[in-house]
């Protein structure tokens, strides 16, 4: 305020910052909505970038295989090991196989796979597209009469949407193997007995819900990574920011979606 008590132009009005932030949130939501709409508009119309789509499936799927195998096995093995003392107190160690399978198939496999993919694949997509944006490679595609959105974005989102459920399924099986090895080591349970008791409590709805979850997670990771990278700016700083945002936002959304899908699946049981 100046001496006369009037508000100078440099001083911010109370609440103006909040208003600006809220406006930015809605503007961002609109942009994400448009980006998603554009994906559905372009992804399923010819010409299809089949070769690039296959390359992306390889990048997302095959290159994540070792990491998913390791984490899947450790999750199954450690979960079984940590659960044993509580069940031993009640003399219920025979429930271990079903406990492991319920935990792994219903929650851990899709969630852990999604979190790993968000870190590995999401950041890589964000950084790659961000770098292409700041080095004008996306503009170069645009001015040569091609469709960079279709080539770069649609192929990557489709690849993550299809590949991450496959990785989650694989991760669940590996986790069960981890669980079985621990149970076999301590209780001497046979493989067939373990699998029979592991799948007994699992229903079709559980498997469907898990698959739907993994598909949604895959779509989210691809979408967030592509959105952050494709709209990156401010040079190399922007590339780092795009990669970082791709991971943080995707992980946040994965947890929100986990809660929502579990609630919705509960209504069908």
């Amino acid at each position, binding site marked *: 305020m100046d001496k006369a008590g009037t508000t100078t132009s440099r001083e911010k009005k109370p609440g103006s910052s909040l208003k600006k932030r809220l406006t930015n949130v809605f503007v961002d939501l609109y942009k994400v909505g448009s980006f998603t709409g554009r994906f559905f508009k372009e992804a399923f119309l010819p*010409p299809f970038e089949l070769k690039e789509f296959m390359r992306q499936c390889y990048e997302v799927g095959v290159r994540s295989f070792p990491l998913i195998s390791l984490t899947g096995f450790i999750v199954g093995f450690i979960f079984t090991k940590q659960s044993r003392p509580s069940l031993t107190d009640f003399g219920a160690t025979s429930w271990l196989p079903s406990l492991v399978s319920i935990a792994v198939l219903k929650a851990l496999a899709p969630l852990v796979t999604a979190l790993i993919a968000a870190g590995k694949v999401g950041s890589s997509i964000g950084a790659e597209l961000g770098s*292409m944006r700041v*080095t*004008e490679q996306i503009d*170069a*595609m645009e001015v*040569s*009469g*091609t469709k960079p959105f279709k080539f770069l974005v649609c192929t990557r989102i489709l690849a993550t949407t299809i590949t991450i459920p496959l990785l989650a399924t694989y991760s669940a099986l590996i986790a069960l193997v981890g669980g079985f090895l621990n149970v076999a080591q301590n209780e001497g349970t046979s493989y067939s007995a373990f699998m029979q008791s592991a799948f007994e409590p699992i229903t079709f709805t559980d498997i469907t819900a898990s698959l739907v979850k993994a598909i949604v997670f895959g779509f989210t990771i691809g979408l967030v990574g592509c959105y952050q990278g494709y709209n990156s700016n401010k040079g190399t700083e922007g590339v780092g920011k795009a990669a970082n945002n791709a991971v943080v936002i995707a992980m946040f959304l994965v947890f929100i979606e986990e809660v929502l899908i579990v609630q919705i699946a509960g209504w069908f049981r």
Partner: protein
Amino acid sequence: MKHTAANIDHNNAVISIRGLEKSFGDYDVLRGIDLDLYQGENLVVLGRSGTGKSVLIKLISGLLRPDKGSIKVLGNDVLMLSTKELQELRIRIGFSFQNSALYDSMTVRKNLEFPLVRNRKGITRGEIDNAVETVLDAVGLSQTINQMPSELSGGQRKRIGIARTLILNPEIMLYDEPTAGLDPITCIEINDLINEVQQRYHTSSIIITHDLTCAKSTGDRIAMLLDGQFQRVGKFDEVFATDDERVKPFFDYNFIQ
């Protein structure tokens, strides 16, 4: 090689710009630009960094939208075109980027094939190979066909960037700082290449630069961009025959034989 201005058709403007304005936030970059590029002409846009030279060619190619004004390219009003029409028009315009903008994940061959296979329906493998070899030969880099962009020097990257635009036989070439970051010998080679492209492919070109050697050896006409407007337009010697304190230092600090 010295550029000759023999084939310029002054009755046929391939690019016609009127009253073009563009701002970024509070900063007015372009303030009412008028410009004609004639068939067969090499027009050099000179100016200091940040004066909106690159913005101008991004507006022409539809990468940016102006706040005001009109842009006609090959008879098409760029601002009125649908996405599909703009895409078709862009095939007729070659855009050579300042940093070449080669696709990092592709070999030179794949870089050159990329626009071709997506814009020429039903093209055969033989025709693709032939087109790739022709443009690589035109820029004198046939030996780099299987190399990755990261394995090329700055000058080679510029040449491959130009080859990638030539593969679609453009009618107009837009060069964004073609000699930026190159040594003087490579600069001369790039200037020669620009003139060769103009004569071999009969293109009309806008060359954005602040390199006066490039301007003098490639430009039929020079347009000096200052304070968001073209302050002086004409032949090289005409543009610099002035006491204007905003233009003179630009000439004085450049060494020209």
